[in-house]
């Protein structure tokens, strides 16, 4: 049940700087925790997050275990034109998730 909450303004003026908020469900297991019998719980985190705007990468983040569970990342971009923003998360154990959002820019 990987779910993501994306907040992109539905509309913007050309040239306006918009704020994009992203939140994805993921336990971000650090790899530093132990079970009650002392076994290490293996690391399982999202390692990369990217955002493309009409195909061009506008944001990229490398995540480490110190990112809180259910990673929340907010960033900005200039509204250059109408189109689609595509958000991609990849991580350990073949984890991938993709969400997209459209924006109308006048």
């Amino acid at each position, binding site marked *: 049940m990987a779910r993501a909450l994306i907040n992109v303004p539905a509309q913007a003026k050309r040239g306006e700087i918009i704020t994009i908020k992203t939140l994805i469900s993921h336990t971000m297991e650090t790899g530093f925790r132990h079970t009650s019998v002392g076994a290490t719980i293996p690391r399982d985190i999202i390692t990369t997050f990217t955002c493309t705007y009409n195909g061009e990468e506008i944001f990229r983040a490398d995540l*480490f275990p110190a*990112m809180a569970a259910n990673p929340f990342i907010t960033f*900005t971009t200039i509204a250059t034109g109408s189109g689609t923003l595509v958000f991609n998360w990849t991580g350990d154990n073949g984890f991938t998730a993709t969400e997209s959002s459209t924006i109308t820019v006048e």
Partner: protein
Amino acid sequence: MFENPTSRRQFFVAVGSLGAMLAVRSAQAQVAANPAAFGAAIGKVTGGAEVKKGRVKLDIPPLSENGNTVATSVTVESPMTAKDYVKAIHLFAEKNPQPNIISVHLGPRAGKAAIATRIRLADTQTVTAIAEMSDGSFWQDTGDVIITLGACLEDPV
């Protein structure tokens, strides 16, 4: 444990005096301050270049209710034009078992250098934000965070 450190100097003196105690505990705990790893992680990003104080503003609460989720934001003064922009922002935690937190890659399309996220801090410590500029310079800001533990420690569900 740390009585409201009023300066980083006092903070590090306190940390130093507990260094021996921490070192013994850390062998078992596997969660320890590791200045060598911290320095190495920063060095990997800067390539040994000088990191100047300024232009970066790290917004992090001085007291956090829970180390599992600490709201953090970073803004960097920059025109974000093709000739002069913030290439990357890196966050580090000196007392986490692994010092890197997140590395964010930006460009002129960002419009401004402003990010926000939530991080995990293993213990009361200093968080460092380093901005890498398009002209190759590095700038930083730091923030001290006191982590309070939950009052009733619980076993896993």
